[in-house]
């Protein structure tokens, strides 16, 4: 059984001199009690890159993603995000949260607020935008996700796909440098995944740095600069999307073959 580390596989955009990675895992470890979920992750995501984490359920993809914005605290190794070392003594979690957006499978919109209020709550309370600034911001990000006409709707009045696009707009309204997506289409009916993936694809084309956990292999292949196959808490194989056509490990071959 070979474990191919990041260093042994060609990374699409190799770190250039002077350009710091947006996300950098170095031997990152994470345990829940006695269960070690991340067993030494190494991974670099450069500015403007899209990294797709794939792998079986339970392989640690969500945990890795949640470590990036500090929802889970790592137990070992080094993790640097947007130039901030998450284990540094002067690390400010809230400052990181201002720069990193995250979207979950279950949308997690605020049900008591309209779409516009959902989108502008954090910009107003965290960044101090006034009413007219925040209205303009809402118009801008809702346009980006194609929901300009839903500003005054409540989440429960929207389809799943629309709710998920609002969740993306809500993150974008904080003007993040990095976006994280955790299986954002997994809860959607098949006919609604397209509209969400198109929004993410547009963001990627616009140069947004992102890390996404996904089961949509075709999408990962198409949009990701870096595909990362995780297995049993390790980066098992990583490379360009074409890696999926020619797996180097038995595990990835089986995973790709299983049609997941």
């Amino acid at each position: 059984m070979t474990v191919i580390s990041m260093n042994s596989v060609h990374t699409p955009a190799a770190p250039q001199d002077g350009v710091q990675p947006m996300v950098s895992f170095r031997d990152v470890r994470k345990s829940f009690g006695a269960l070690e979920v991340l067993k030494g992750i190494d991974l670099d995501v450069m500015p403007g890159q899209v990294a797709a984490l794939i792998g079986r359920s339970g392989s640690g993809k969500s945990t890795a993603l949640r470590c990036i914005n500090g929802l889970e605290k790592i137990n070992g190794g080094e993790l640097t995000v947007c130039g901030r070392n998450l284990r540094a003594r002067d690390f400010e979690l809230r400052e990181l949260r201002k720069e990193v957006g995250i979207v979950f499978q279950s949308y997690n919109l605020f049900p008591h607020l309209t779409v516009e209020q959902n989108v502008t709550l954090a910009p107003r309370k965290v960044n101090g935008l006034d009413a007219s600034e925040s209205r303009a911001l809402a118009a801008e990000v809702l346009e980006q996700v194609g929901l300009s006409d839903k500003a005054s709707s409540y989440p429960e009045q929207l389809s799943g796909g629309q709710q998920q696009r609002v969740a993306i707009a809500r993150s974008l309204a904080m003007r993040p440098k990095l976006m994280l997506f955790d299986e954002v289409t997994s809860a959607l009916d098949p006919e609604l995944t397209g509209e969400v993936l198109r929004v993410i694809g547009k963001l990627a084309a616009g140069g947004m740095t992102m890390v996404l956990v996904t089961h949509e292999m075709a999408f990962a292949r198409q949009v990701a600069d870096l595909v990362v196959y995780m297995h049993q808490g390790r980066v098992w194989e990583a490379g360009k999307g074409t890696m999926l056509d020619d797996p180097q490990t038995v595990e990835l071959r089986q995973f790709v073959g299983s049609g997941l």
Partner: protein
Amino acid sequence: MLGVSLDQYGFLVQGAFWTVVLSLMGFVGGTIVGLPVALARISGGWFLCRASSLYVQFVQGIPLPVIMFVVYFGVSIYGFDVNALVAAAIAMTLYSSAYLGEIWKGCIQAVPKTQWEAGECLALTNLQRFIYIILPQALRIAVPPTVGFLVQIVKNTSYSVVIGFFDLTYSAKILNNATFKPFVIFTAAALIYFAICFPLSRYARRFELRLHRRHA
């Protein structure tokens, strides 16, 4: 009417007025004390959490009439001349704060944890998350059980009769002593209690149904 004069019914209504006053005092006092009790359980440290939990269990473990006695006689021992209204209001505050605190703790906890997390990921502070995200949702959840508990408050103010507070029950008792028409008088008192409580429980029921429909 049925051997009881209009004036005497008026006397009952007077008692009902004080029942409503005491209920409102118990509810307002219960809110002022109960809200911190709920918050301490949710977000306080170990000490606050234990202290408020102990408070709730302690108060819930004592029958309300006994609380009335303790407050009424206990306070006057220390030389304060408490009138029955003040004592009854304090007792009702103790009683309702313990229950309201417990009810509201449940309502806050009923808001999914993912709502806290969503706010956290948007860089909102703890306080901001509580005020703008959790509290509005918890309030909505809290309306039916809170209004439902108001009914308990109204009914349980009748225990203040043990310390001689002039409320609906007490006025009915006095009237009975004067007229010897217990069935008529206590039925009238029952109808007045019902007239106060029924709209409350109706409202609670309807609000609850509306909530369920919205989240169906």
